[in-house]
């Protein structure tokens, strides 16, 4: 950052997360061409785009699961390179994946603590199951997730309960700065949907966590987001805050581009 208050980079100063020209290909398939996006502190950003537009690839890059072919990622103004999921987590980036990243065979509390287990015994890393079980139960009660028992294997839970567990696992972290939600509301009942929406809203307002949400349900997005970005063919083509765009306009735009009429939102 420059000494004179960063006046020469007006868009970037208060951004928690910023990407510049992120590109990635899988063999001959170009998933991301050049993604530039920014995320302000405490903001909820909605990402929309067709299937295969590159949303999930972007999420996997920001999580440290994929390494981009080119481009830069800035976290709180500093350039970061995530070498692994653990690395991204240490920087305060948490993710709820589309497939939820839960292991059905393991209990609820083991899933909540997966790869961040409470351990004793130094090098041997013995599991502190009692501590984890109690902490899991307390945390789930606190945020209002209703699970019969934290000992239940996740495979026996309903789709909505699983989703709630996946979200709970991400928001449980204390150093969380950015939360990535890849279709968090798919397969949710009305009750769980409002629970998750409430959770997202309270996180962004109270805890000052910045959130990126991917969802195909634009009604949900307009309920929770401050700003919407549209990704098409591996690029951000539209960046509008909610005051600048109406739900009907967005739907119309997406339908038009789907039909291939080439209409743009910028009149």
């Amino acid at each position, binding site marked *: 950052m420059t000494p004179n208050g960063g006046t020469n980079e007006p868009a970037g100063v208060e951004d928690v997360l910023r990407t510049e020209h992120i590109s990635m290909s899988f063999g001959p398939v170009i998933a991301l061409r050049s993604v530039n996006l920014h995320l302000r502190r405490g903001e909820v950003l909605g990402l929309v785009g067709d299937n295969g537009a590159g949303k999930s690839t972007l999420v996997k890059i920001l999580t440290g699961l994929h390494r981009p072919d080119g481009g830069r990622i800035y976290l709180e103004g500093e350039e970061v390179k995530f070498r692994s999921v653990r690395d991204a987590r240490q920087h305060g980036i948490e993710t709820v994946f589309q497939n939820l*990243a*839960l292991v059905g065979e393991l209990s609820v509390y083991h899933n909540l603590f997966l790869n961040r287990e409470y351990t004793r015994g130094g090098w041997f890393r013995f599991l502190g199951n009692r501590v984890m079980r109690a902490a899991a139960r307390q945390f789930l009660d606190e945020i209002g997730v209703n699970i019969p028992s934290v000992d239940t294997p996740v495979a026996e839970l309903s789709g909505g309960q699983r989703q709630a567990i996946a979200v709970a696992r991400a928001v449980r972290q204390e150093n969380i700065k950015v939360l990535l939600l890849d279709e968090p509301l798919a397969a949710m009942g009305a009750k769980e949907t409002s629970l998750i929406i409430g959770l997202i809203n309270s996180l962004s307002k109270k805890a000052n966590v910045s959130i990126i949400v991917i969802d195909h349900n634009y009604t949900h997005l307009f309920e929770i987001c401050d700003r919407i970005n549209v990704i098409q063919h591996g690029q951000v083509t539209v960046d509008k805050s909610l005051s600048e765009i109406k739900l009907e306009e967005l739907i119309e735009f997406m339908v038009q581009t789907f039909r291939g009429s080439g209409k743009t939102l910028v009149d």
Partner: protein
Amino acid sequence: MSSDTPALPVVKRRIPASVMRRFIGQHLTEVVSSLVAVALAIFFTIESPNFFTSANALVLSQFIAPFAIFALAEVPVLILGEIDLSVGQMYIVSPFFVTYWNHAGVPVLASVVLALLVCCGLGLINGLVSVSLRVPSFIATLGMAFALRGIILIYSHGAPTNPIGSGTLVNILGGWPWSEAFWALGIAAVMHVMLRGTTFGLHIVAVGGNTESARESGIRVDYIKIWCFVLCALLGGLMGIVDGYHLGSLDPATDGLTFMFYGVTSAVIGGTALTGGRGTMVGACIGACVLGMIKNGFLILGTSSFALDLVTGLTILVAMILNVQIELATSKRGSRGSFGQVVSVIFTIFVQRRKGRVRS
């Protein structure tokens, strides 16, 4: 935090019955297998006065221990959804490594340690070939098994020899009649704690249950897999040395694949899923007990050695059919097998009749 608000009284102390039900529900295969083991024990005790004796207990332990150790070695690999076909050949080869190092002038104990390290190295190769070079573990370890067999036949010219050394060390390693049983129990205890009580064990189940989820959770999947192959080879090698000292002679032409399959069979009888994600060390030991008793029991009954394989095969089949079908019949998820349907229909009729009687 609102922990002092009435949140705490809501968390009821669960009654032991529900804990018990959950335990049986999650470990049904193990429970059924132990019932099969008890049934076999009763059957052989009734059929022969020589089965339930202290003399036979020793013999039985020597049948069960090798099966158990092979099963314990395979369980982590099987939970990962992989298989190690070379563990049996590792068992044949490792005492020859001891001989090799000893001939090179290394003391016996150091030779044993070196031999085990070589086994770990071979396990590492198994892991690297299947994980880094992406050869399916079935083929990678099968190749290793044949290669090891070749190496040892070339080295020994196909001639049996005697294991090196004598005295206390050899007695501990396998010379004392009960030492195999103690090795098996010790390894079982360590492996059980490893699988159920450490992050490594938890991550094995996570990778086996859902590899993609494990990777997305930041678990180093490749690292876990490679270590399991190393562990499997190490236990196979250790078993080879123990059994070598126990038998007192080493035959390079022994077929290791058969031993490996006894291990895999024990593990599967004890509830380990060949598709990965599920398995316990206790179950592996129970499976080994079932298999050991079948072998030992039918020998005592005087079954001819030709018929023994037939009987063993059929018993394994019956035990597994029972196991799978009972699990299908009682599990809430998944479809029911045909046998399970019959069982559940009979069960329903039985329950309805009893209800009818209570009403009238």
